[in-house]
């Protein structure tokens, strides 16, 4: 005779007990784990915890302001803040890229930052209306496989990549925010027609598509592609982790103000709906302090944005890069860029 009620009931009991035990634990012993603590400054961070948390801890130790950070994906957090509207729990939004901050500005959700904070950074790397500010910079570069190419053979301009000799040999990540910012820059600098022509030329030249920069880097290392367009720090991070000899690919910074050498930023903004404007502003200011900037430079191999902070070892100084002359606030037409990328068939 079978009695099927036993294992079922037992399993349900196990679930209920586990749930009760654990939620009691989470809710009772550590109340700060169970809710946004309204007494703390709340930061929504699209940048990763391993990078941000040490800075947050230092800030709390130095100022006595307690911070609660919500980590997530940059674009999804921006969508969430817009969905939350005036009732957003966020006081500060720390973003992986300028585009998401620009979207919040357009929705009128960001407050203007104090002038003394804005003055810390070159106007190129912050919003025209002062609603957000860059905290670190990254350069677009070409990563190449030295088994297939010498540095001299790597083109000096991305415009050469539509030529037949590069057919099927180039990797890009059209869905990556940095690639899109680069296309936007090309549109702003060279006009819509030239940008469209380039994208269509790339598509016709059998360009290889990847989901993100790391996969392009890996593909160049594996020789699947001869070269690819990525951000500089992916390579430097991998070298720091595995050693130069373990990373077969090499980088080339493009000369002559080519759009392929665009410098973009990660940045931060304060929510207009926040009732902690002063504390939020001091957090932004702290991200631009010497300590925090040095930390960003050394930990992520990005470029610091205030004067006098050394860059990571082996990285050419920001001032030495021949980047295109462009105001990052002009890169706020992402939708047109996406449409163009889509029409070129690069998705």
């Amino acid at each position, binding site marked *: 005779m*079978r009695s*099927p*009620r*036993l*294992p*079922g*009931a*037992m*399993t*349900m009991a*196990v*679930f*209920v007990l*586990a*749930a009760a*035990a*654990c*939620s009691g634990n*989470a809710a009772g012993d550590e109340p*700060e*784990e*169970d*809710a*946004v603590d309204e007494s703390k400054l709340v930061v929504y961070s699209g940048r*990763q*915890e*391993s990078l941000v948390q040490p800075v947050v801890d230092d800030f709390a130790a130095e100022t006595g302001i307690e911070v*609660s950070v919500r*980590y*997530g994906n940059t*674009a*999804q957090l*921006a*969508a*969430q803040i817009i*969905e*939350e*509207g005036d*009732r957003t*729990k966020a006081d500060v939004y720390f973003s992986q890229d300028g585009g*998401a901050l620009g*979207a*919040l500005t357009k*929705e009128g959700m960001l407050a203007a930052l104090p002038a003394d904070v804005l003055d810390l950074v070159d106007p190129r790397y912050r919003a025209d209306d002062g609603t957000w500010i860059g905290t670190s910079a990254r350069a677009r570069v070409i990563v190449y496989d030295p088994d297939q190419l010498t540095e001299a053979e790597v083109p000096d301009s991305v415009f050469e990549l539509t030529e037949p000799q590069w057919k099927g040999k180039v990797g890009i990540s059209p*869905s990556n925010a940095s690639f899109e910012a680069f296309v936007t820059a090309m549109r702003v600098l060279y006009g819509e027609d030239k940008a469209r022509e380039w994208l269509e030329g790339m598509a016709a030249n059998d360009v290889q*598509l*990847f*989901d993100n920069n790391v*996969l392009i880097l*890996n*593909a160049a290392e594996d020789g*699947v592609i001869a070269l690819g367009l990525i951000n500089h720090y*992916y390579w430097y991070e*991998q070298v720091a982790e*595995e050693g130069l000899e373990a990373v077969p690919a090499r980088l080339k910074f493009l000369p002559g103000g080519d759009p392929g050498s665009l410098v973009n930023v990660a940045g931060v903004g304060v929510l207009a709906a926040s009732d902690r404007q002063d504390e939020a502003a001091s957090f932004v200011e702290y991200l631009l302090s010497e300590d925090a900037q040095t930390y960003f430079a050394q930990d992520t191999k990005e470029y610091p944005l205030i004067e006098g902070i050394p860059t990571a070892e082996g990285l050419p100084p920001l001032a030495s890069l021949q980047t295109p002359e462009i105001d990052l606030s002009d890169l706020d037409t*992402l*939708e047109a860029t*996406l449409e163009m990328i*889509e029409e070129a068939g690069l*998705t």
Partner: protein
Amino acid sequence: MAAPAEWRTEVTTTGGRSSRPPALLAVPALIAAAVAVLPLVYLVVRSFDSGVGEFVAVLWRERTLRLTVRSVGLAAVVTFACLVLGVFLAWLTTRTTLPGRRAWAVVAALPLAIPSYVAAYAWVAAFPRIPPFWGSVLVLTLCCYPYVMLPVAGTLHRTDPALEEVARSLGRNQLATFLTVTLRQVRPAAAVGGLLVALYVLSDFGAVAILRFDVFTRVIYTSYRSSFDGTAAAALGLVLVVITMTVVWAESRSRGRAAQSRIGSGAPRARRPVVLGPGGVALGLLGAAIVAALALGFPLGSLGYWLAQGRSADLDPGALAGAAVSTISVSALGAVLTTALAIPVGIMAARYRSRRVRALEQASYAGHALPGIVVGLSLVFFGVRFAYPIYQRTPLLVLAYAVLFLPAAIGAVRASVAQSPPVLEEVARSLGRSPARVLRDVTLPLAGPGVAAGAALVFLTCMKELPATLMLRPTGLETLATELWAETEVGAYAAAAPYASLLVLLAAVPTFLLGPRRRSGTLDSSEGGS
């Protein structure tokens, strides 16, 4: 040939009754359905935010159609592959003398704990030239076949062997019996599993993105990123809902009206397993081992390799333990709530096959093929407006799990209730028991194992859920999935390895609890007696 047909006609007379469901079931079922359609309401509200014109413009783009076709094609191929693999493994681990059957059953269910994007990354890292379409088919099949295997194995456990024995005694050989009798018996369970697979594939984004196979969900993600508001994405989400409802409708048609319960008196006889010869044992072991190696060994091995290679892994045992505790707690709460909501819907779906009940059941699937970001945003929308006190607190997160995984639990409840004979409930009623007592004393205990299996399935899927968890979890609460994501997002696969391994380890517990332990006792004794 005659036996199954006769059996079926006789049961439809008892199974096909059409009395009205009692309020005791109908009211909670309505509540469950209301919870499940929350995302749908949100999508409709958002879609028409900027007027009908834009809505239509988004839908009529050539790319929308092209990607719809690609998504549906991928879902069809993966579902077929999962049906074949899932039914085979279920049969192998429940009905044969395969050595170590119980252990294999647990191992074969474990790939459910591996997030598909981790598996996809492992394959791309090892084989950079893997073709996008077949790579996606491979990875998704290996991640999803347990959705089919688990309910089918449950059915194979519970069904009375009498029917198959009759077929054998009438001269059918083993294969013919399997094809004509056994497969028919598992068809409803397999269909439920196949439905879950199809909906999973439609909603998946991470794996296909890494494997570079462009599908419909990408358009949704891209439009969130481009405009950061939901109008276009919501319109596209509605397309997914329509596809989902079509698939659900097709599944419900395929289920037909055949009743699954056993009739006749007495307890079912103990089953005699299919005795595998040495060749069969070798083939069975080889098959099970290959699947385990590809679905489980390969991704875990890759994680281990990264752990050994990289120097980024400075493991914080406290963070690991904390993530494990919060994962278990929110997932267990999610499993309890989801199962509680699923029970009334599942019972009604099994016992009262009216048009309205079908509509109710199908409504609960509405949000299931939506990518997590859409479900997450819809609960942000409702949470901020109507439930602000619990916004970004555990209750709303648990509710999100219920919205996401209700169909898995409903399928399990329905399948197991359908297998217990309704006549038992009628007898209990005729003996004067109230409907509530019948439910408590007869229906639920009989369906117990199936319901628990559903709860375990929900528990497993909650544990690896990511997008909705990221949006709705209490600030500061980290689950194994969010930690895994945080590390893999920055390419720190070495640091991610412990979280992924612990996820699989924790998943093994409910899988093992629900494993075929009890019945194997009778199995073994019958083996001795034969």
